[in-house]
């Protein structure tokens, strides 16, 4: 049985699965249920100064695709709308009752040192394990010069992080916004400010859809809409990329990364770990199906690790990072060719039409007596994978690696006018 115990920036939890700072972690009631369901930790929904913010109705918009609900979720909710004292009292109670779980408190106050100095001792007094600085909220709070408005300015990130480090003994996790051109800038600023860890990604600025009757962006609030923060399974690729960039950056070396962004199951979890995450934060999947989803995450990750012979999370964390390279370092001599398993093929023709219309005309079609027959024209196949992706039958089309004769990257490639010559 793989050991899933996690130590992240000094914060301990029985497994790497934390609920992200969001509606599921807004109250003692929810957090208690989450811990009973098996979650390793929570990042309590962001606390701010009193008086608390006021939230709107409605708050969410969702993206579905071909019958699947909630592949993406967008929200226009702000930080916790409950009084600070109420949250603080509940955090204290929950932490005392679940001492083995990680309780991290997300914070967002205006960009003034006194404000941060004021709130930190109050949080510290709860016995919480750490704080997460919400520099990511991309809607509403950013219009008040908080959240992403801070996270998008590396100097502010560094400054606020430093204030926090100087005024608390708790580990400081800086939550990064993806709404930037280069994620390394705020990430490096956080480290420069003394951050113990970073977490990412926060939500992405988005308009989830347009209500064509109301002629307003969704969710429609009294006839109008605003942009929100986008999350859920569809943002996973963006998160993986940003996490990988930080994980392989020499100036960030060794900083713990808490991975966030569309993690829905154990496989996503393993992928985030492999790209450098040391803990995992989940929200949309829980909002879709409830806290019980953690059961299969724990179980599936553990089983997969057992199958691979990984004994502890450290064996997985960052394992794919050295293989995550700039395009320039890819071997141009490597080639794969599509192979269609004719016994598995159902004759839907999707591989053919995708290749014919949008790729390299490398799949021929012949109408046989029983079914259509599709075959790869190997000389035309560039190994792009498109056919394998559109095929509705698992493992029917496989990409077969061809024998490789040495290595050649673009910097040395004869077609590169700026090639490096020996």
């Amino acid at each position, binding site marked *: 049985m793989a050991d899933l115990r996690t130590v992240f920036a000094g914060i301990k939890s029985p497994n790497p699965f934390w609920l992200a700072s969001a509606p599921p972690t807004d109250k003692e009631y929810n957090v208690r249920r989450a811990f009973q369901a098996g979650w390793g930790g929570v990042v309590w929904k962001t606390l701010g100064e009193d008086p608390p913010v006021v939230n709107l109705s409605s708050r969410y918009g969702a993206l579905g695709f*071909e*019958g699947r609900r909630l592949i993406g979720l967008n929200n226009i909710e702000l930080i916790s709308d409950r009084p600070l004292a109420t949250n603080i009292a509940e955090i204290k109670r929950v932490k005392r009752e679940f001492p083995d779980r990680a309780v991290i408190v997300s914070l967002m106050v205006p960009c003034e040192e006194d404000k941060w100095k004021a709130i930190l001792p109050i949080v510290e007094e709860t016995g919480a394990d750490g704080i997460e600085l919400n520099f990511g909220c991309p809607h509403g709070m950013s219009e008040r010069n908080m959240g992403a408005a801070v996270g998008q300015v590396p100097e502010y990130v560094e400054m606020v992080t430093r204030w926090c480090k100087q005024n608390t003994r708790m580990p400081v996790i800086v939550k990064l916004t993806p709404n930037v051109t280069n994620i390394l800038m705020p990430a490096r600023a956080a480290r420069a400010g003394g951050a113990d860890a970073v977490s990412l990604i926060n939500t992405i600025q988005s308009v989830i859809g347009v209500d064509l009757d109301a002629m307003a962006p969704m969710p429609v609030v009294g006839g109008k809409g605003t942009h929100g923060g986008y999350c859920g399974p569809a943002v996973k690729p963006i998160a993986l990329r940003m996490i990988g960039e930080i994980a392989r950056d020499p100036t960030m070396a060794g900083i713990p990364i808490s991975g966030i962004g569309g993690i829905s199951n154990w496989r996503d979890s393993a992928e985030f770990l492999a790209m450098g995450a040391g803990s995992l934060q989940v929200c949309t999947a829980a909002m879709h199906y409830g806290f019980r989803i953690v059961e299969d995450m724990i179980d599936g990750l553990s089983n997969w690790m057992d199958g691979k012979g990984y004994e502890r999370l450290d064996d997985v964390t960052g394992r794919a990072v050295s293989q995550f390279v700039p395009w320039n370092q890819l071997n141009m001599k490597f080639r794969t060719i599509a192979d269609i398993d004719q016994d598995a093929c*159902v*004759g*839907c*023709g*999707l591989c*053919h*039409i995708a290749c014919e219309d949008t790729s390299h005309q490398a799949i021929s*079609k012949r*109408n046989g007596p029983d*079914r*259509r027959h599709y075959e790869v024209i190997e000389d035309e196949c560039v190994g792009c994978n498109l056919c394998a992706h559109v095929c*509705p*039958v698992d493992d029917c089309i496989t990409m077969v690696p061809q024998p490789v004769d040495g290595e050649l990257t673009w910097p040395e490639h004869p077609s590169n006018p700026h090639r490096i010559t020996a």
Partner: protein
Amino acid sequence: MGTRFDIACGRLPEAVLDLNFADAHPGLSNEQAALEADRCFYCYDAPCVEACPTDIDIPRFIKAIASDNLAGASKTILQSNILGGSCARVCPTEILCEQKCVHTAIEANHAVRIGALQRFATDWQMNQTTHPFQRAQSTGRRVAIVGAGPAGLACAHRLAMHGHDVTIFDRHEAPGGLNQYGVAAYKLADNFAQKEIDFLMSIGGIQFQGGAVLGQTITLADLRQSYHAVFLGIGLSGVRALGFENEGVEGVLDAVAFIEALRSSTLSEVPVGRRVVVIGGGNTAVDAAVQAKRLGAEEITLVYRRGPEHMSATSVEREWAQTNGVTVRFWASPHHLLTDQDAVQGICFSRGTPEGGYDPQDSFTLEADMVLKAIGQVFVPDPIQKDQILVENGRIVVDAHGRTSMPGVYAGGDCTAGEDLTVAAVRDGRDAAEAIHAELMASSVEKDANNG
């Protein structure tokens, strides 16, 4: 035998009859349709399309359902098959589109429910007040159609759309042919056949003349005189007989006549036997047997002279009969009728085997108050006997465009060779209409050229 002859109406209360003859397979809800439409892979050069006699672009209409474009979905169906609504209900999809669905290669019997989705889309159209097609400017050309069944109706609609003036003649008082008089009521419940005809006719330019019997009240020669072209969709008006001398006794009926009476009457006024034996292995046999059961018959036995694999009714139809309380017996050939005072009392069958034929010594008898014969329908050439239209193998001979051997006369549907399916009849009518249109337009161009 000593059992009393027992045929009666109203064996069941009217409320029960209404339930028994309500829609056998109610339409999909919006949620069901959305889920089912999303199952479609949207195949390229989809095998299901090839399996549809009317070539409906199935992936396209299903994609349209999935995207909530029901106007597009229904128009895609109806432009290939104007009777797409009834075909969605009566087509044996299990041997047509759904048999070829690639999902069946992943899991047997798990095709996308194309028929149900087609019904969903066409039902949407039926609930609109608009017609998806517009009639072209009148061409001044007149076409006579004999037979208001699926072939004639499809032909009429397409011709009317092209601007021709169409008159449909039929011996019945109402149009619809087998849809109106021949299909089990629960397959086209809620008066669907009539609603569909009203929809079809709403394009304009189509007149219906009922009570017109070819060879009697109207003749082909007259029609050719008065119209620029004629289409024959006269179906199969004859039924095969058992060949017994005493076949005319009370209680022995053609299944076709039984169903027609049922479709034309109030259910509580349709007489049915207490014990019914249906002879035959096609859809008519199944429709007769199940409807007899649902009218309140106590014992129904469907007897077919060969094995299940030889039945022209599909396995789905056969199971429908069996799950509706019909006992199905195979390899038994009618030997003689048992009668008493000119009423049927039972029927004796010889058992048979694939190898050895039927053995009169090895027989069994089924007591019956009613025997329904469904052993095949045949084309009756009498109405066109004088017209010297080529008939071969018992069907009117036509070319690929529906042209008979007589100039200006076209034919399609069951009276011509090919599968006897509603959907095939629709294709024949539609294609003949296109050929008639081309011919009429070519001749008008010639005339214009001559005049000029």
